[in-house]
Structures are given as C-alpha cells and as structure tokens.
C-alpha cells in the first residue's frame, strides 16, 4: 500500500498526533492547576463553608493537593491517572474515576445522538437548499437554519420542556432514565438531544449548502451531467461526498462545542452526565472532580479530532496524497 495509508506513514502520523494529544492533556491540567493559584479564595474554605475550622480546611487542602507546588500536583495527578485513579472527591470520599465513569455514558450518548440528529437533518436541508439556489424554499430554509444557529440550547431546552413535558406530558423532565431500561432511557434522551442538536442542524445545513453549491459548479459535475446522469445521482453520489468534507472537519471542533452545550442541557434536564458533574464541581470548587472531568473531556476532544483527521483523509484523496507525500519527505 502506498501513500498515506502505508504502514510507515500512518505510524508516523499517529505518533505525531499522539504526542500532540499528550501535550494538550498535560497543558490543560497544568493550566487548570495554575488557575487554582490565580483565582481568589481558598478552595478548601469555599468548599467547606464559613463554619469550617482551620484544621479541617488544612486537611482538605492536603487532600486536594493544594499544599503541593504546581509541577508536583500535575505530576502526581498524571501518575495516578495512568493507573486509572483520577483522585478522590474530597466531599463524599468517592472515587472520581467511578463518578466520571458513571456520568460519561450519559454524556456520550447525548453528544452522539445530538451529532447524529444534526447530521441527519442538517445534510438534507443543506442539499435541498443547494439544488434550488435562490428559490423561495432556499430562502425559507436559510431563515430557518440561521434561526436555529442563533437560538441557544438552554432556551430551546426550556421551551421544549414547557411544551412537550408540562403542556403535553409526552416526555419526562428529569434525569436520564432507569438504568438498564432502554426504552425509558430513550424516552429521557429525546428532548435533550433536540435541544443540543438544534444549533448544529442549522450550522450543518448552511455549511452543506455552500460547499455543495461550490462542488456543483466543478467541471466533473458538468461532465457527469453531460453524460446524462440523473440529477439525483449527480448530487448524491458525486457531489455530496466532497461537499461533506467541511462538515466532517467541523465535527471535531463540534465535539468541544457539544460538550460545552451539554453542560447547560444536562443542568436543565437534570441529567447526571459529565457536563452537570463538572458544573457542580466548579460551583463548589471541588478541584479533584474538576480535574478528573477536564481530563476526560479534553481526551474526548483530542480523540474526536484525531478521528476526524483520519476521516478527512479517507474522504478526500487530495488530503491523503498530500499527507502521504509530506510524511515521505516530499513537498505538498
């Protein structure tokens, strides 16, 4: 196998991305630890409240590692993290790893379903608008898409809850559903998914429309049409694959955005996910929990971007070629 997919190129590419990922992880935790030094107020005092004795405050400072120098805190955290230990919640004494693992599936399920819904609706809307540029439908879809992009997920969440839960009683308000009860969990997932996906539906629709319009004016599309290929086939088979490349590229960044949006959505729907876990922990400055959550969120972000890079190369032969040449020492 030649080019980018050859064993050597892929391994080199993977190694360089892995090194970047490690740097990002260490950097983010170091930044977080240094923030605890800059932000006013003693986290232990805030966490324990006004009545805590100095001795208890000092014990908590030690438990949170706040008495250690910055580099040592980062080192100790990663040393334990590599052994699967993200620390201990100083309030409840529970393992942060257990807390994160309990919350993670809820957030991943929410993020994946939101992305899925956004792609499922955004791409057809974008296609529809692109094949009828300037038409009334295109203009209506443009207004619709921009409205979706401009509406914050927490506003959508509250409106959805009001209409579908309070007024109609179709969906539950709280939680993620009974563990092990798939239908119940799906039932609890629908509204949060819509709330989180709404902005992305509009964004993907606009992105697909503009890139599809660009691809549809390419010479090879003209050729396909000249050969008498049906328009549906031209759009779906030849144009859409290329037009989707920018969409795939933004999905990597989108994971980060979705994790941010998930905080609001999980708080409003009271879903016990990673977003609400980190929100609660930040509120009371429970740093061991914040650190554990941030590490996992950053890792998800890095992993998603890595997958997107590979998907990008898989979708676009030009990227594949260019990367293959670069890794082999050739110029792009």
């Amino acid at each position, binding site marked *: 196998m030649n080019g980018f997919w050859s064993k050597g190129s892929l391994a080199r590419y993977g190694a360089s991305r892995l090194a970047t990922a490690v740097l990002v992880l260490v950097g983010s935790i170091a930044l977080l630890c240094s923030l605890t030094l800059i932000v006013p107020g003693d986290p232990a005092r805030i966490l324990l409240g006004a009545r805590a004795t100095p001795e208890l405050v000092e014990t908590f400072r030690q438990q949170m590692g706040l008495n250690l120098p910055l580099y040592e805190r980062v080192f100790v955290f990663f040393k334990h993290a590599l052994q699967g230990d993200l620390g201990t919640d100083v309030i409840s004494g529970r393992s942060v790893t257990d807390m994160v693992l309990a919350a993670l599936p809820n957030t991943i399920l929410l993020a994946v379903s939101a992305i899925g819904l956004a792609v499922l609706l955004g791409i057809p809307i974008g296609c529809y608008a692109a094949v009828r540029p300037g038409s009334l439908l295109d203009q209506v879809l443009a207004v619709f898409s921009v409205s979706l992009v401009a509406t914050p997920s927490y506003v959508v969440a509250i409106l959805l809850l009001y209409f579908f839960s309070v007024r109609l009683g179709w969906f539950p308000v709280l939680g993620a559903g009974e563990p092990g009860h798939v239908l119940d969990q799906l039932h609890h997932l629908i509204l949060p998914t819509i709330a989180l996906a709404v902005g992305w539906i509009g964004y993907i629709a606009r992105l697909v429309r503009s890139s599809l319009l660009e691809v549809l004016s390419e010479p090879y599309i003209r050729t396909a049409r000249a050969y008498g290929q049906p328009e549906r086939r031209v759009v779906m088979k030849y144009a859409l694959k290329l037009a989707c490349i920018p969409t795939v590229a933004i999905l990597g960044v989108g994971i980060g955005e979705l994790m941010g949006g998930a905080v609001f959505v999980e708080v409003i729907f*009271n879903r016990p996910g990673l977003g609400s876990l980190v929100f609660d922990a930040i509120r009371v400055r429970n740093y061991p929990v914040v650190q554990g959550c941030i590490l996992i969120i950053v890792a998800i972000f890095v992993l998603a971007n890595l997958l997107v890079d590979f998907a990008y190369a898989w979708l676009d032969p030009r990227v594949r070629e260019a990367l293959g040449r670069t890794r082999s020492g050739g110029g792009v």
Partner: protein
Amino acid sequence: MSYELTRRGFLAGAAAAGVTVLGQPWANVAYAADGKIVVRTDEDLQNLDPANRAGPIDVNVILAVGQGLVKFKPGTTEWENDAAAEIKQVSDTLIEFRLKEGLKFTGGYGDLTAEDVKFSFERFKPAADGTKVTYADDWAALDSVEVTGPLTGKIHLKAPSPAVWLIALADGSGVIISKKAFEALGDKFKTTAIGSGPYILKEWVPRDHFTLVANPDYIGEKPAFSEIVGKPITDDKTAQLALQAGEIDFSRIDPAVAKDVEATKGLKVEKLSAIDYVWIGPNIEKKPFDDVRVRQAIRKAIDVPAIIAAAYNGAVDQAFALEAPGLLGHWKDAPRYERDVDGAKALLEEAGLGGGFTTKLTVLNKAVAQATAAVVQANLAEIGIEVEIEALDPGAYWAYGENDASKNLELVLVEYRGKFDPGFQTQWFTSDQIGTWNWQRWSNKDFDALHKQGLVEPDPKKREQIYVDAQKLMDESAAFWWITHNAYTFAFKDWLVPGILPNGNQWQYASFKKA
C-alpha cells in the same frame, strides 16, 4: 434469514417504537398513591456525618434517619422528647437524661445506649491534637457526658448555655450516632447514614437521587409516607417545570413564578418568612464611613421598599433589626427609617461631604444581590455618592472572610442564614470576629459584653432584653442597613402537607403528611 430494511418498514418500526416509548406509563401522579413522594433538593447530599455536615440538605436526611435526645416539634422552634424518655435541666450546667427502651440502630449496629450519646456529643470537643469537627461551636459549652447506666446519663456544661437546647440538642449536632457504626465504617460513615429514626437511607445515587424508606424498627409514630425520594435539582426553572409536569411533589421555588405555579391544577404555593438576615453595611475603619453622620445619611438615602419591590418581586418583608420576628430577642419596636433624601444630603453637608464621594459596593454575583446593588447605586446617586458595583463569584466573595481581607471592603451586601437561638446571630458582629466574619470591622465593647452575657443567661426574659439592647447598639451605630429576613416559597401537591421549620431550609421529612 435475511432482512431487507425498506423505507416503509423503517417508518413503521420507528412509529411503533415511538408509540411504545410515549405510551409507557410514566405516571406523573403515581407517587402519592402508593405512599411515596418525590421532593426536590437544591443540591445533592454531601456529608451525612452530623458533626461535619455541609448544610441543610444533609441535616434534613440526618434528622430523618437519626434521633436526638429531643427534636423540634413539627413546624415550630419548640422541642419535644425524641430518643429521651425523660430529660431535664437539673442546674444551669447539668442536664440529665434517660433514654427510651428498645431503640435500635439500623444496619445491625445494636441498641442505642448512653455510651452512644456520650460518644456522639463528645466528638464535638477539640481532639488532643487540637483538631475540631466542623460544627464544634454548637457544643462549645460541653464539658463532658457522664454515663450513669445503660440508658441514663448526665451532660455537664462548662458554663450555663441556654442555646445548647436549640443549637445543639434539637438540631443536627444533637443526633445520636452509633459508636460501633462509626468505628466500623471509617471514612464511609459520612456517606452511610446509620440511625434509629423514622427513616432508613435505602440508597444514595450521587447526583441522581436518594431514597428514604420507613424504618420498620422505629418505635415512635410511623411517618405518613413509606418512601421519600430526594432529587437534587440545582436549576430553579427545571424544578418548577418538573413540578408542573408532575414529576416531583414538593420543591422550593423562585417567588417570582409563584403565581404561575399556583395556577397549575393540583399545586399549592406557600410562602414562609425566614430568619436569615440580609443587610448592607460599610467598613467602619474606612473613611468616610468612620463618621456616623455619613452612615446615617446613607441609611436615610437607601430605599429598602424599592429594593424589595425590584430585587425580590415584593415577595419578602422588610427587616428592621438583626433578630427576625418569632425569635427570642426580636426587637419589635425597632425604628422604621423612612427615606429622606434632603435629610441625607444635610447630614453629608454637615460631615463636609456635600460634594459627594465615590465608593465601591461588593456583592455576590447573584441576580437578587445585583438588583439590590443597582437600586442602592441609584439611591445614593441622588445624594451625590457614586457607587461602583463589585459583583463577585462565591469563591472570591467569601474570600473576604480570610486573611483579614475585609479591611479592603468599602460597602458590602451580606446575607447570613439564621438559627433559632439569638446568640447565633449576634456572634458574627463581635470584636473578635474582625478579620473573619465581622466584615464591617464594627467594634463595640458593650455589644461584646451583651453577647457573652446572652450566651449564659438562663432566664428567657432577661435574655430577650439582652439581645434587644444589643440590637439598639447596632442601630445607634447606623452601620447596618437592614433589608430583609428573607422568605422561602414552596410549591407542592395539594394533597401534601410539608413539614418545614420556621427557618425555611430545614425540612422534617418525618412530618410530611397527607392533607
């Protein structure tokens, strides 16, 4: 076998799944029928060790699961016997008790004995190495507990302490824990509530719910509900919607939405005046606030009714002194200062500040606090004082209680939670609290003396006068511009009667009843 997914098949399948999901009997009203209720808590449980509890959410569960020698009568600040068959104040410094027979700890930890009482209360004394539990101050007057028999004992106090009944014995710090359980569970004790009370903590799924079920071995009056599920919901709007959708049965709500919630069929709304104390005050050590005329001028200029209307939607009553109505020491004749802009200007002129000055008002970055600050800013602008608002997140705000940081404050808006004994409220204003919680750095020797006197005075009438006199000194200083004692608004199903103590944040789960 092969199966081809057609578009029609997919749509039919999706429709069937949708109907199945929507058709599930997620009953909105299921709980009450089978003796279960769902209550909303503002936050999750944190620490179920009575001595190191984190706040009212914890103590509500601790008191439902455990027993003290005495407990608050439902909805009042009076106490009645709980685990004690008999308890009496023999002298100013001695309390004798006899426990009821047959009290058992859950989890197989055996009988509740006087040894457990001794262990529970003496934990609040400083350890040999000087370390103390979080609520050590509640039992500051405790000298020792003497065990005189399996079910009898004597509580020896270092000095007379009438406050010990309401602050310690009837509250969370008076809950009797199992010595055996404490030693066996170690660090897990704070997440495993073991007690002899009306409920058992069946499960606590962090950040999702906790479940209390009726304790079959409890020898007192059985609670009305066999199961109480607590759901931590931080967002008020979510709680409101969950209540209206029928997923929860009881919640504290934002007073601003009370009318909307009350209009929902099957829901009731109840407002309860609280005993907190919210006020604005200056740093006495900073110029020009060291001049009493400037403080009096600002007191005349601030429009408290406007603050209550704008920031609280008119949902709270105005406060005129430190101790809330209903508490011992409430000063019912406290002066009601009317707004007087001309009088305020004249006082500033007299103080040589007719041209006004610029100052900073520090508040928490909460909506109510910021709205209050905005009204004060407008009020003081009318007398020539330009106010810059410093809105801080809780971390930065409460850091003023450390390392003498309060010396940098100018004006500050403060909100403290109250307790049923007046001495709890006055303690934060004494001279020895300067540098920690006396942020205004107000020092008055007579006030300090009255506070000390109040702590040890056994005669309630004399105590009452002591605390009124203490509040008169605060009033004379013109350093405390009282706003409100707060109010809590609750919404609940119309078939429910919640058990709430007069401070609004302590809920007696065992007193929740069917209407």
